[in-house]
């Protein structure tokens, strides 16, 4: 008989689903972005920045950044859980990555809001 102590109800399920949900969103966004970029008349500043200025693609682009940072958080956390054994160091790295990603989200908002 396998003796197993199950801790908690659904540890990790939320992140597992979050990782996949953000992945699917990013796949769809990538296709939409590529189509928009292909339809640009020319690669000028006006055309390129205009693509993200307000509108639907601007909205999706912000969501893409949020999805990307949440996805990156889960992935990097998994890498640290696999390779960094000392709990203190792993925890410190997790905090650093979290702060970085939240900062990136602010940066991305600032880039897109300015347009």
């Amino acid at each position: 008989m396998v003796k197993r102590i199950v801790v908690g109800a659904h540890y990790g399920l939320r992140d597992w689903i979050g990782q996949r949900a953000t992945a699917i969103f990013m796949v769809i966004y990538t296709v939409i972005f590529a189509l928009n970029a292909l339809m640009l008349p020319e690669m000028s500043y006006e055309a390129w920045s205009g693509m993200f200025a307000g509108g639907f693609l601007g909205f999706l682009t912000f969501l893409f950044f949020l999805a990307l940072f949440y996805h990156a958080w889960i992935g990097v956390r998994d890498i640290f859980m696999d390779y960094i054994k000392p709990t203190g160091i792993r925890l410190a790295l997790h905090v650093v990555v979290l702060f970085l990603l939240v900062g990136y989200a602010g940066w991305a908002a600032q880039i897109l809001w300015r347009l």
Partner: protein
Amino acid sequence: MSEATVRKQRPKFLALNEIRLPLPGIVSILHRVSGAGLFLFLPFLLYLFDRSVGSPESFAAYKSVVSNPFIKLILFGLLWAYLHHFCAGIRFLLLDLHKGLELEAARKSSRIVLIVSIALTLVIGVKLW
């Protein structure tokens, strides 16, 4: 709580230089490597995006940065990382849905992932730069 330490003894073979990773294993580890690489270069990519949409002047500065051959090489690598992560990710999503779990199918799909991501990298990379 001490019962939590009950574990099966499993054989270990971790001579990394002697392990010959099968194709699905290569796709898997490259998924991780490409993801880690993309994460590490996030600030650089955000910086480039910021410059490219900032103003006509910063757009010109962005253009001169990305025309540097060394930067081009890095971007080429990041483009591959994105596309590999993209293709391998779709494969993993299909595996989650129990599609292509058989050995032959899994080997075939991993070969497709490797080939398609490299082909797309070449096509897009050559078109962009």
